[in-house]
């Protein structure tokens, strides 16, 4: 649990507490501005989306990850390269649907929720919803790059995050579901 001082560490890394606290201050501000969990979730996702659009460029430039052949490979890259590189954690990929078009990312020790104790009455607040936006944007951009020549390309992307603060504050689940129908048709 020591995400302590970063002195003398990797110069590309920022103090984890600075990041966590800044994100927390932002969510708390949004909650004051909108006073509505759903609206806050929506804003967080939107902000995450804008971040994701830039982040995927950075990711492609830095990670040297080749093209993914299928969604399973994509899932692995998100968890083992993406999350590792940007947040220093490696979520577990699980809950694959039989069709292989849906999976969950299980995040233990989510750095965004360090220190967070949600005030009562905010059971529908998805504290880490920013991540959903980031993932949505990043995947959309990549798909777009890979399949942009396919005119039938259609992507409906559903991204859920259950913030289980009351059960166990350190455990978040993100489910990703991608509709591959049209890609397979091509």
């Amino acid at each position, binding site marked *: 649990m020591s995400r302590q001082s*970063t002195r003398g560490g990797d110069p590309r890394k920022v103090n984890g507490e600075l990041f966590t606290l800044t994100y927390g201050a932002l969510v708390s501000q949004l909650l004051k501005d909108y006073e509505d969990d759903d609206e806050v979730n929506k804003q967080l996702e939107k902000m995450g989306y804008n971040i994701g659009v830039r982040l995927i460029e950075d990711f492609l430039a830095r990670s040297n990850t080749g093209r993914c052949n299928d969604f399973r490979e994509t899932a692995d890259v998100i968890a083992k390269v993406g999350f590792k590189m940007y947040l220093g954690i490696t979520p577990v990929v699980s809950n694959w649907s039989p069709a292989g078009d849906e999976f969950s990312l299980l995040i233990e020790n989510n750095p965004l929720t360090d220190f967070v104790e949600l005030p009562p009455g905010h059971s529908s607040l998805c504290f880490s919803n920013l991540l959903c936006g980031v993932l949505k944007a990043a995947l959309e951009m990549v798909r777009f790059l890979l399949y942009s020549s396919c005119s039938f390309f259609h992507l409906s992307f559903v991204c859920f995050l259950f913030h289980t603060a009351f059960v166990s504050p350190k455990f978040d689940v993100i489910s990703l579901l991608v509709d591959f129908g049209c890609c397979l048709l091509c």
Partner: protein
Amino acid sequence: MADEVVFEYLHMEMISYLYRTAEKIEQDHCISKLESLGFRVGQSLSERFTKDSSRFKDELDTMKFICKDFWNSVYKKQVDNLRTNHQGVYVLQDNKFRFLTQISSGKQYMDAAPKYLAFPCGMIRGALSNLGINCVVTAEVSAMPACKFQIQIQRL
């Protein structure tokens, strides 16, 4: 530990979110909102960073903490120069301020600097306020990415 790019994008998005959702007339309000977000973060950071240090002797001791430990933990370097007039004004000079290194140094970007400096100014004010020093913090940029922070102590 997060990658600096993630933090940088989060900070940028925070700024553009505030400007996106504010009315035209409320633009000044965005700066103060960013400042108050930084204030809250600074409060928490100073509480954490001083957990293992011995008690500060005086104001100057506290300022040195800001210039060395606080700066080191947040920006991975120390303040390059600290000056004071011994009458409650301190000037911290950072020749390569991390929040500005990403912005191009062209003159046309100078207008954007206040937006990027509101949050760090708030962090300094929050950290000092929590350490018992009430002050006003302003930033001044003459040549990117060098930045001067002026701290004016408010005495009761």
